[in-house]
C-alpha cells in the first residue's frame, strides 16, 4: 500500500509525497538498522503526518479533495522537477529546478529546513519554523520566470545549510531535508508552498554535476593582474574548478578587447543556469579556445587555459579573459518540463552554478610599470642602495623572481660605467655570492649593479633599478 501511495504522488509536491516517502523508506529499512531517534519536533511532524494520512486510499483522496477545494479555481497545483535530489553533505551543490503551473502566482522567498508542517490555511507543506537551516542568499538567486507558465530556479545549497543538515543527521534525525519555495497570488489569496526533498551524500556520482567554485589564475596564483608590453608573453593561465558530481566540462575561453562593451553578470552565468529560451542568447566575444574535459567524481580539477601565444596583446588597454561554460547532459541535474506542464522535453543542466563565472584581467601598455615585480616593496632586493662593504666582507646579491625569466644576468660596473664583472644565474636561483676579489678589481670607490631578467628568446623582460655599492677603506 505504501508503495502505491508513493507512486501515486510521485512528481508532485503535495504533502503526501514526503510522508509517503518517509513511511515507505522506513518500511524498506525495517529489520536492517535501528530507526534513528527523532528530535521532538521531528517526531511531532511524523505523528501529524501519520494522523493525517495513515495511508488509506480513502483518506488520501479525501484530503486531496479538500486541498483542491481550497485551491484557487483558476490555478492548478504548482509542481516541480526534480522533486527530490541528492546533495553534498559537506559543501555547496547547485541544481536547476523548474516549477510549473504557476498561473497567476509569483515566487517569493525560499527556505531550507529539516522538517515540514502543513501550511494551513495556505496550501502545501511549509518549513517547520523550529528547524530552519537557512534562506537562499540574494547573491545566489538566479531564478527567473520562464517558458510556459513556469519558473526556473537555481537551488544553490550553501555550505552552511549543508553543515546544519549534516549535524541534524548526525544527531539522529532523518538525513532528508527540504527546500521550500513560497508562491503568492498577487490578487490576494492563499500562498502556496512547494517543497523539494534533499538527500545527503558525499561529493560523488550520486550528486548532480554542478560548479561550486572557480578560480582563474595567472601562474598558478603567483601573479594578480599582469601588465605586459605589446607582444610580450603572458603568464601561464589555469582554471581551478570545484564541482559536485561527475560530468563533462564543456565550454570556451573568450576575450573582451579594449573598447568593447563588457559582459553583464547574466552573460557570465553557465549556460546550464539559464532557462531553455535564454540559452544561446548570451553575448559572445572573440573565441580563443574551446575545452571539453571529463571530470571524474573527485570534486576538484585544474584545467589549462589557452596558449599564451594565442592571446591577443596588440592594443593597449584592459583585456578580460572569460570562462564560459556550456550546458551538458547529466542524468541527475535535469528538469522534466513535460512532467510539470512547463513545456516539452528534458532540460539538461549539467554544469549549473548559482554564480557568474569570474574573469581574468590583464593590461597591455608600456609594461611593468604598474606591477613591477623587481620594484615591488614586498620583495627583497639586496644589498641596499649605497650599502658599504669592506674588502674582506662577503657580498651576496638577492632579487625577486620574475615569472617568465629563463635566466638572470647580474652586471657590476664601476663609477665610470666600465663592466668589471657579470654572472649568469638560472631561473630557479635568486641570489649570487660575489667572489672575494670583486672589490679589489674596482678602480673607483663605488660600484653600480643591477639584475636583468631574460626570457627564453634571449630578450630582456625586466630589470632592477641600478644600485650603488660603496667600498669601505679599512
Amino acid at each position, binding site marked *: 500500500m505504501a508503495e502505491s501511495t508513493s507512486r501515486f504522488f510521485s512528481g508532485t509536491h503535495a504533502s503526501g509525497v514526503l510522508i509517503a516517502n518517509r513511511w515507505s523508506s522506513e518500511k524498506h529499512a525495517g529489520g536492517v538498522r535501528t530507526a534513528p531517534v527523532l528530535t521532538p519536533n521531528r517526531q511531532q511532524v511524523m505523528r501529524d503526518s501519520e494522523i493525517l494520512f495513515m495511508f488509506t486510499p480513502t483518506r488520501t483522496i479525501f484530503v486531496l479533495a479538500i486541498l483542491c477545494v481550497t485551491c484557487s479555481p483558476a490555478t492548478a497545483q504548482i509542481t516541480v522537477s526534480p522533486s527530490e535530489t541528492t546533495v553534498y*553533505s559537506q559543501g555547496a551543490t547547485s541544481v536547476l529546478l523548474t516549477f510549473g503551473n504557476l498561473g497567476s502566482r509569483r515566487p517569493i522567498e525560499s527556505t531550507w529546513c529539516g522538517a515540514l508542517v502543513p501550511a494551513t490555511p495556505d496550501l502545501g507543506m511549509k518549513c517547520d519554523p523550529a528547524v530552519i537551516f537557512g534562506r537562499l542568499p540574494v547573491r545566489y538567486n538566479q531564478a527567473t520566470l520562464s517558458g510556459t507558465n513556469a519558473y526556473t530556479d537555481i537551488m544553490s545549497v550553501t555550505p552552511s545549510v549543508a553543515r546544519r543538515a549534516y549535524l541534524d543527521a548526525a544527531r539522529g534525525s532523518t538525513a532528508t531535508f527540504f527546500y521550500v519555495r513560497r508562491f503568492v497570488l498577487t490578487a490576494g489569496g492563499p500562498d502556496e508552498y512547494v517543497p523539494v526533498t534533499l538527500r*545527503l551524500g558525499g561529493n560523488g556520482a550520486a550528486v548532480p554535476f554542478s560548479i561550486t567554485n572557480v578560480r582563474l589564475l595567472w601562474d598558478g596564483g603567483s601573479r594578480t593582474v599582469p601588465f605586459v608590453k605589446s607582444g610580450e608573453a603572458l603568464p601561464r593561465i589555469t582554471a581551478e574548478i570545484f564541482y559536485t558530481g561527475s560530468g563533462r566540462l564543456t565550454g570556451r575561453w573568450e576575450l573582451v578587447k579594449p573598447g568593447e562593451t563588457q559582459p553583464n553578470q547574466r552573460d557570465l552565468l553557465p549556460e546550464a543556469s539559464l532557462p531553455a529560451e535564454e540559452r544561446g542568447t548570451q553575448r559572445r566575444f572573440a573565441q580563443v579556445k574551446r575545452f571539453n574535459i571529463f571530470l571524474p567524481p573527485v570534486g576538484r580539477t585544474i584545467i589549462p587555459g589557452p596558449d599564451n601565444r594565442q592571446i591577443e596583446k596588440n592594443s593597449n588597454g584592459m583585456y578580460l579573459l572569460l570562462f564560459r561554460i556550456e550546458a551538458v547532459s547529466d542524468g541527475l541535474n535535469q528538469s522534466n518540463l513535460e512532467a510539470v506542464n512547463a513545456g516539452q522535453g528534458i532540460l539538461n543542466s549539467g554544469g549549473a552554478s548559482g554564480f557568474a563565472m569570474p574573469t581574468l584581467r590583464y593590461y597591455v601598455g608600456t609594461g611593468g610599470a604598474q606591477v613591477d615585480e623587481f620594484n615591488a616593496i614586498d620583495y627583497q632586493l639586496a644589498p641596499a642602495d649605497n650599502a658599504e662593504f669592506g674588502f674582506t666582507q662577503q657580498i651576496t646579491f638577492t632579487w625577486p623572481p620574475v615569472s617568465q625569466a629563463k635566466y638572470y644576468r647580474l652586471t657590476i660596473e664601476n663609477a665610470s660605467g666600465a663592466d668589471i664583472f657579470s654572472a649568469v644565474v638560472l631561473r630557479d636561483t635568486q641570489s649570487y655570492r660575489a667572489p672575494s676579489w670583486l672589490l679589489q678589481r674596482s678602480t673607483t670607490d663605488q660600484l653600480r649593479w643591477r639584475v636583468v631578467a631574460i626570457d627564453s628568446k634571449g630578450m630582456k623582460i625586466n630589470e632592477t633599478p641600478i644600485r650603488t655599492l660603496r667600498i669601505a677603506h679599512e
Partner: protein
Amino acid sequence: MAVRHEQVDPLYKSLGASAGADKRQYDFQLSGSIGEISVQAGHTRFNDNLRRIASILQSLSRGETFSVALPAAALWGGSSNTSKYLPRLSYSRSVMHQFGAEIPVNGGFATDLGAIPNQYSTSQNFSADWQFQKLNVGYNYNRSFTNNQARGRERFDFLNQTTGVRAGFNPTSRLNLNFELTRDSANDFGSVKLGRTWRIGPTVSWTLTKHMSWTAGLTNTIAGDRAQTSGSRNTEFDTQFSYRMGAERGGLKKVQWQLFIRYADRYARSRDIVFGTASLTRAQIFNGGINVTVF
C-alpha cells in the same frame, strides 16, 4: 614510488586549503623514466561519510591511472634523417569505479534506489605534437565513457569524444598564423541523443613594421544532434589594425599613443524544436580610438 594518505574530518573548513571534508584517501603512485620516456601508474581509493552516519549515503571509490610520454624518435627514429619528423607522443588512461556502500537508513534513498551510485568512468587521452623550426602541429583525441550501473539507471550512459588538430606557422618573426579544428561528440544513451560540435578557428597576426600591426581571427562553431531536433551556429570574426607611436627614449620613453581601428562581426543562431525556441543575434561592431599611455 609514492604513497599518500589523506584524511579530512567531517565539517573541516579552512580558508587556506581547498580540501574536501569528510574524506579518507589512499594514493599509490609508481613513476619511472628510461631516457626521455616517462611512465606513471597509480591506484587511488577513497571513501566519505567517515562517521558512518547511517542515514547519509557512503560512497566508495576505486581508481587506476596510467600515463606515458615519449618522443617517437626515441623508439623508432634513432639519429636518422627522418627522426625530426617523428612526433612527441603521450597517452593517458584513468578508470574510476564509484559505488554506494549500502542503502542509507532513513536517508530518502529506499524509494529511489537508482540514486545510489554504481558508476564506472573511463577517460583516455592521446596526443601527438610535431615541432619544426617555423611550424608546429598537434593532434589530440579524448574519449570518456560513463557506464552507469545504478539500479534502474543502467541505460543512462554517456560517451564523449573530442578530436582536435592545430597548427601554428611562423614564416617570419613578424607573422604568426594559427589554425585549429575540433570535433566533439556527446552520446547520451539515456535520452538516445547524439550531439556533435564542430569548430574551426584560423587566426593571423602580422606586425607590419615596428609601429603597425594587423590581426584577424575567425571562429565558426556548428552544433547539432543527429535527430536534428536542435542546432546552432556561431560565427565570430574580428580584425584590427593598430598604429603605435612614442618617444621611446629619455625620460618620456613610456609615453606613447596608439591608434586602432577594429571591426567585429558576431552571428549566433540557435533553434530547438523540442523546447520550441529559436534565436538569431547578429551584431556588427566597428570601433576605433586612440590610447594614450603616460607612464
